């Protein structure tokens, strides 16, 4: 018994003392983020990442934006041959997700995949480089435009039902950690989770280059990562549940300017 107690004491002592001293010293240097329920996620980034976001010469997102601009003009037919110059699609990204003819919600990446399938690039996935590059370039073209998700008159009831299901998901506890989205993103905005600072989770900055992913990912992937974070069953990419949650988040963020693509921790 005595041996076990010494063993446990040793196990507890080793890692805590040294790292506690270092972390305490380093934590003092970090400035507090602005806490506002209508802030973009960009406001919650540390100064170094904000500076990187603003420097196109060193921002990895530049590679996706430029590749998207090249892909827009490539192929026969090219995107440009139907849609014209990308700059003319300034107001396109703000309206997604929208109800497609088959009654399912479609976000911008879904739409890119559907369009490219018709143009000779079938079977593309949400996180493919081509899809994310075009999404990055299209969102960049729409920077500053206000999020504007609206139902069409004919499908208003169905659209409303999707929003309500999304809202219900937002307030429902889930996962082993048993938290709902609102517990962090409405009730604890500004709190720290290790290196992260909790934001209101407005979807204005997608697609994102997330440092943990070391690549660009879509809003679909980021929402799935949230399910993973609370140790809930992660929905498959493209599921209706994820689109409804995205629609609700966009309704909640209605009127906020798009500022993607952007960096995240």
């Amino acid at each position, binding site marked *: 018994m005595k041996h076990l107690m010494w063993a446990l004491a*040793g196990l507890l002592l*080793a890692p805590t003392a*040294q790292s506690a001293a270092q972390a305490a010293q380093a*934590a003092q240097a970090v400035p507090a983020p602005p806490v506002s329920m209508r802030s973009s996620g960009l406001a919650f980034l540390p100064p170094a990442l904000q500076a990187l976001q603003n420097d196109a010469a060193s921002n990895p997102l530049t590679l996706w934006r430029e590749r998207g601009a090249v892909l827009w003009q490539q192929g026969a037919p090219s995107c440009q041959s139907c849609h014209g110059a990308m700059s003319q699609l300034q107001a396109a990204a703000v309206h997604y997700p929208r109800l497609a003819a088959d009654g399912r919600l479609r976000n911008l990446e879904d739409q890119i995949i559907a369009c490219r399938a018709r143009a000779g690039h079938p079977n593309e996935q949400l996180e493919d480089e081509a899809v994310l590059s075009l999404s990055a370039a299209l969102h960049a073209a729409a920077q500053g435009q206000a999020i504007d998700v609206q139902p069409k008159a004919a499908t208003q009831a169905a659209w409303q039902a999707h929003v309500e299901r999304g809202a219900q998901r937002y307030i429902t506890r889930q996962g082993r950690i048993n938290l709902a989205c609102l517990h962090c993103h409405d009730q604890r905005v500004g709190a720290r989770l290790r290196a992260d600072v909790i934001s209101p989770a407005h979807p204005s900055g997608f697609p994102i280059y997330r*440092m*943990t992913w070391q690549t660009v990912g879509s809003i679909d992937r980021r929402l799935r*990562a949230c399910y993973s974070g609370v140790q809930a069953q992660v929905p498959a990419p493209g599921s209706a549940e994820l689109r409804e949650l995205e629609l609700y988040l966009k309704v909640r963020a209605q009127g906020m300017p798009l500022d993607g693509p952007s960096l995240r*921790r």
Partner: protein
Amino acid sequence: MRNRQNPLARTPLVAAWCGIQNAVRRGIASCQRHADGRALPLWPSLSRRLFACGLLACGWSLRAQAQPSAPGLAALGLPTDGIQIELDPLSDTGNAIPLGLRITAPAGLRITGFEIVAPDNPVPRVLQLRLSTPVPEYRFATRIRLNGSQAVWVLARFSDGSRHAASAATVVTSSACFDGT
């Protein structure tokens, strides 16, 4: 995240492991006996224990010599002047940490190249740059990956074959939620 800056930091863990082993062996020994009722020996024979310790010591020292280590680099005793390292003391992620450096050669010498070393990474050498035309001053910046909090070393090489070395430390933190995507 491991922090191997202090080699003695592991002593409590080693002692704890020995303590657990001892407690388990005593527990097992107290339950078992020889057929004639004699108590079973608690440990293997002394000679076998010494042999095992010797093997472990050889393996450990060989492993330590294979990769540049922080104590090894410090022990080289190279001059630190002429190297400025820009490294944030706190990093949000280990995946992409900005690192800037500025090397000024001593009077009469020129820089022929430099190396960036992260001793606590699985592969400590981050990169090596070799200049085709030696220069008196050089600035460079990149983004590196670090396995955990550690000191990052820059070793500069000069035209007469001499080297200078300097280091800067950073604490590597990470975002909170597990991301299985």
